[in-house]
């Protein structure tokens, strides 16, 4: 003993995980709002999803700005003279602003109260820009070559799957007793959460078979408090349990309101837990190097 180890702070704190969670839900809701133009069963969700996604954008944006140590300088990310396009954050800033603008235009169109071609087009544009949000947040992590788990190509894919799962879960909670909408949403929840499970298995496998840093990160992720949140909250409660419940409903071709609500809540819990662990876990080891 007697070693002198200089400790370093983690770069990104838990508020960033909340931002990831919020941005995922808003992206999922945006997909649903566009989906309502194609799938009639989702029609009752169109306005609710659009309004809520804009509200969540405001919440997420505030979280992101408040997390900066120089909050007022967030305007620098929109200054063309400063932007560095090799950084995913620069693309993310532009994506958030573009989504905000498209979302406002879409809501203005929705307030006219008629199904116009312009409305459908704006819904598509909003949904495509919303797709960019989980992708850019994923790349935010992926580009850090020295971080195990983050530096894997599946992270943006995982974030898209989590966005669909958590957006559908919120959509399911918003739909209430609408059986037609619930039938579609339970399929969305089932297959996107199953996708999340497959990606998590892939990440865990790759990490445990990696080098020393990967192996130690795997231990940090799967044991102690972090393990409880990741394995307990993220994988068992948040992924395996809802998949089992929804698969049962899929096989029987019927689901009770309790089953759906429970699945939706578990998916949201898992989605939050996974974001927290995937953000914080891989940073721990690095703080001691």
């Amino acid at each position, binding site marked *: 003993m007697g070693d002198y180890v200089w400790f370093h702070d983690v770069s990104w704190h838990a508020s960033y995980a909340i931002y990831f969670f919020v941005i995922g839900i808003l992206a999922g809701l945006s997909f649903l709002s566009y989906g309502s133009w194609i799938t009639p069963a989702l029609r009752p969700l169109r306005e609710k999803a659009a309004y809520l996604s804009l509200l969540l954008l405001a919440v997420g944006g505030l979280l992101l700005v408040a997390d900066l140590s120089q909050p007022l300088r*967030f305007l620098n990310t929109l200054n063309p003279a*400063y932007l560095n396009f090799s950084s995913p954050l620069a693309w993310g800033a532009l994506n958030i602003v573009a989504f905000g603008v498209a979302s406002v235009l879409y809501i203005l169109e929705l307030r006219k109260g008629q199904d116009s071609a312009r409305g459908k087009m704006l819904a598509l544009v909003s949904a495509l820009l919303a797709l960019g949000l989980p992708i850019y947040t994923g790349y935010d992590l992926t580009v850090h070559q020295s971080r195990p788990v983050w530096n894997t190509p599946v992270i943006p894919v995982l974030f898209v799957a989590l966005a669909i799962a958590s957006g559908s879960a919120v959509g399911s909670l918003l739909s209430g007793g609408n059986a037609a909408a619930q039938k579609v949403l339970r399929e969305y929840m089932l297959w996107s959460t199953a996708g999340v499970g497959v990606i998590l298995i892939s990440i865990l496998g790759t990490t445990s078979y990696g080098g020393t840093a990967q192996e130690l990160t795997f231990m*940090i992720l799967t044991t102690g408090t972090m393990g409880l949140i990741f394995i307990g909250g993220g994988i068992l409660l948040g992924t395996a349990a809802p998949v089992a419940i929804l698969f049962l409903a899929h096989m029987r071709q019927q689901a009770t309101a309790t089953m759906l609500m429970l699945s939706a809540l578990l998916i949201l819990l898992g989605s939050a837990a996974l974001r927290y662990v995937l953000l914080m876990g891989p*940073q721990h080891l690095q*703080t001691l190097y």
Partner: protein
Amino acid sequence: MSEELRVSPIETRGVAGKKRYAMVVDTRRCIGCMACQVACKAEYDTPLGVNRTWVPYKVVGTYPNVKKQFLPRLCNHCDDPPCVRNCPVDATYKVEDGGFVLQRYERCIGCRSCMAACPYNARFMLPAHRTYSSITRVVDKCTFCFHRVTQNLVPACVQTCVGRSRVFGDLNDPTSEVSWLVTRNATQVLRPEEGTKPHVFYIGADRNQTEFGRDAYSKPEVMEPERSAFKRHFKI
């Protein structure tokens, strides 16, 4: 160094007419006096709790055959720096002639992306309050003493090193001392697998220090009270 070894356009390896400053740290000569750390603190008024350079040590061996292994650390001024790539507003940039990786304080938004990108933990957030400087709440790091080197002086840590463990110079100049040391000795860089092409070379570095130790696993929770106290005090 041949030109064909360059893989990224940002690298200055072997570019004619361009300086490529590097530091060689001969760990066999380091006595762990921490004078480099103090000199750096004095040069920049670096606040408490953060350092531009630091000298961690590890006691290795089994009694009675034990010794302290020192590994002076600082920003590696990488030839292909991930922090520069990741900064969304170009607040971090590489000086083409010299290879210094520097920070524009007035532009930094404090997103900590560069801190996350750095494999060497060389970057830190300045606290909210400082006694002699108004530069607060932005990311800071070692500059290789850019202001001294451009005045034909060596960095403060090199100047003060009593054992001449730290040597500084232009790696693109084949007659420089660093070139000679790198050519004639077996050298190591930290985490070469990251592809950052660091400009800090170590002679005789111990792998207990350069690699992730197995014992690192148990440390985060032990150190949590210190981290929390640090963050509370500096409001970061």
